[in-house]
């Protein structure tokens, strides 16, 4: 019986790094679920359609001031990065289901792009200044 027990509990399998991608996926998904429709409505449909909104609210000076504000920077970084990481995880897993290519290539094309965009966003936000 003791032999049977030892083979049943073979050394725990190597830990997966999936949590590194799953948590941003979850955060991005929640952010998109709570504010996605609102954001798309404001920035993509109602805003550009209403007369004067873009001139007042979305003028270069106004948006620049938002992006220069530390809180504004955090919001922009969070939304862009988390939306990309959410999309990356889902697209990666779906392409893997579809056997669209070797897994390392798929990871590069999805997580790699998300990482690049996150980095560039961070750098550009710093470059815009305070």
């Amino acid at each position, binding site marked *: 019986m003791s032999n049977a027990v030892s083979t049943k509990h073979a050394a725990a399998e190597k830990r997966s790094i999936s949590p590194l991608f799953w948590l941003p996926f*979850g955060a*991005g*998904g*929640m952010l*998109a*679920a*709570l*504010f*996605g*429709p*609102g*954001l*798309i*409505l*404001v*920035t*993509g*449909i*109602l*805003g*550009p*359609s209403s007369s004067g*909104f*873009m001139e*007042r*609210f*979305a003028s*270069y000076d106004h*948006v*620049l001031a938002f*992006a220069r504000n530390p809180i504004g920077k955090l919001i*922009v970084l969070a*939304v*862009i990065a988390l*939306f*990309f990481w*959410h*999309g*990356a*995880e*889902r*697209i990666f*897993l*779906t392409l893997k*289901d*579809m*056997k669209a290519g070797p897994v390392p290539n798929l990871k590069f094309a999805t997580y790699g792009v998300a990482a690049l*965009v996150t980095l*560039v*966003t961070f750098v*550009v*936000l710093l*470059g*815009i200044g305070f």
Partner: protein
Amino acid sequence: MSERRPYRRPVNPKWWWAPGAYRAYTLRELTGVGIALYGVVLFAGLISLSRGPDHWEGFVQFLRSPASIVLHVILLVVVAYHVKTWFEILPKTQPKIIVNGKQVPAQTITSYATLVAVACSAALVLFTFLVAR
């Protein structure tokens, strides 16, 4: 007993498009493409902003174009489907919630959470337009 020769049937490589729950699952996951696409739009906006007022004006002109409006309507539909399906999965990721000795049904959690989400997006729209006045 000595004549065992177990046979493994091959798995359908297109299982993700099989009609019913599997196809619905794939469509649900593809909403991630919509979310990433909207991220691309925002990213493009940020880059335009960083390049100065002329580039920003160009981005605003793009947002005003019919093509962009159509794109955003499509993205809105995709993200709305994301909202619906996201809160359907949400109860699965949590331990059972027990109130008065009974398990709160998953559908109840989904309904409440979806309501909160609608309120959040509505609040964002209202807030933005109020502040813009």
